[in-house]
């Protein structure tokens, strides 16, 4: 991508007024879809995404069932009105790929072996898109899985870092994604120290690469705290302040 205008001003502020280490406003509400076994609504900057989990439940068609573990099924979908120009509702190749990497990002966290012959379905619907919708989607989906009471090894938190005006910045937005130099979405299980999703498009020098990865991981930890807060809020309400037990 060739950049045409400055995206960071002389005061170090970005197009939306953030500093280079600042996350966009993130708000997670747990249990917004009443019919689902677990759900979460996330506002990540201008992203508005709802994630719903159904299951563990019977697998249809039956031949997909695995005798020793459950199958995780994942769908990432953008509503036609979620983008600037209307998006055709049929799944695009981009959505096929994101559904795949999203499932692969969540699978290491889910104890699939606890639910043999069953399926867990994760639906992620992007109602309004901004940059970083796959990260926001994974973040919401993993909260929804926890809300559904699925046995998990860790919560998956996701956040991107990228390059704008030759600087490495945290959590790039739509404009920075389109006009900036590089985008690196990362999903991370902070307790287990495992990266479960990582992509990159755009050019980075070796030093920038390491800086970008470190920054994305810091972002993931910030997102992780917000995920924990949201779950605590639903299950313990205001009476219990989030207490560090470790």
């Amino acid at each position: 991508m060739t950049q045409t205008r400055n995206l960071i001003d002389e005061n170090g502020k970005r197009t939306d007024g953030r500093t280079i280490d600042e996350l966009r406003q993130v708000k997670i509400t747990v249990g917004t879809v009443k019919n689902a076994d677990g759900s979460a609504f996330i506002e990540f900057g201008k992203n508005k995404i709802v994630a719903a989990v159904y299951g563990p439940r019977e697998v249809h068609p039956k031949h997909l069932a695995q005798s020793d573990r459950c199958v995780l099924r994942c769908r990432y979908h953008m509503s036609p009105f979620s983008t600037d120009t209307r998006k055709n509702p049929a799944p695009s190749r981009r959505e096929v790929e994101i559904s795949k990497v999203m499932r692969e990002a969540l699978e290491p966290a889910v104890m699939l072996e606890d639910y043999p012959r069953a399926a867990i379905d994760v639906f992620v619907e992007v109602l309004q898109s901004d940059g970083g919708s796959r990260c926001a989607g994974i973040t919401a989906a993993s909260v929804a899985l926890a809300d559904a009471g699925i046995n998990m090894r860790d919560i998956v938190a996701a956040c991107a870092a990228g390059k704008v005006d030759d600087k490495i910045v945290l959590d790039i937005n739509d404009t920075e994604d389109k006009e900036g130099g590089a985008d690196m979405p990362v999903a991370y299980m902070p307790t287990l120290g495992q990266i479960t999703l990582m992509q990159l498009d755009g050019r980075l020098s070796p030093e920038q690469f390491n800086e970008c990865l470190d920054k994305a991981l810091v972002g993931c930890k910030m997102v992780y705290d917000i995920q924990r807060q949201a779950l605590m809020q639903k299950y313990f309400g205001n009476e219990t302040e989030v207490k560090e037990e470790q």
Partner: protein
Amino acid sequence: MSVSKRSTIIVEHLRRQQMLDNLAKGRRLDGRAFDEQRPLEIEVDVIKKANGSARVKLGNSEVIAGVKVETGEPFEGLEDKGALIVSGEVLPIASPHVEPGPPDEETVELARVVDRGIRESEMVDLGKLVLVPGKIVYTIFVDCSIVNADGNLFDATSYAAVSAILTAKIPILEMKDDKVVDTGSTMPMPVTTVPVSITQVRIGDAILVDPASEEEGCMDARITIDTTDEGYCALQKGFTGGFSPDQIRKAAETARIKGEQVRAKIKEATGFGR
């Protein structure tokens, strides 16, 4: 919808155990070092009807790539640039597990990752492929056919596409009375850099460069990293396991070192830079 499934490559329990035992001793079943690629053969200009073509063999994986040049409208938002589209198809002849029909998610991922590596490296100077800004541009199709699948299709396909682009001669077109006319002469593709994809898989704690089919059948996680002379340009982590941050940093370093060697091979085979 993306459904978790077992690998299509079934590795017998005894073979898997043998592989794990060997990896614990620092050996791979085919005798390679962990960071050693299978033999890479690149042959160019194999399809005379194409504007550029290459046949790549990476071990037993074999891919044929062809470049076709057409004209068309530019992409939205990229009015002053030619269009470059890289796609890949795993042909039914490539393995007993492939069925004809619309591409499955793995093929979609393969094609998109190969395309991303080439696109993000800005290998082709698309600014030079414009006839009428905003209206008519060169459209470069790079189609890759996988004719034998034996692991690491990401790298084999990428090398084939890159080699075909490097050797492509594109027709010089002109506008006459609002029509595109072929002048009859050709020019080389405007190339700025040579991107190289290096794929590694993790099996337990071992990280292996250029996985063969049976190694992919046992892998926990996969990572494909594209580099240019200057640094990184694309990356895709795949499969259901994770990597620690340190493993990623190490893999990125390996991708640069190995990438440099492969870049030299591609340049030699295509005569690029000579």
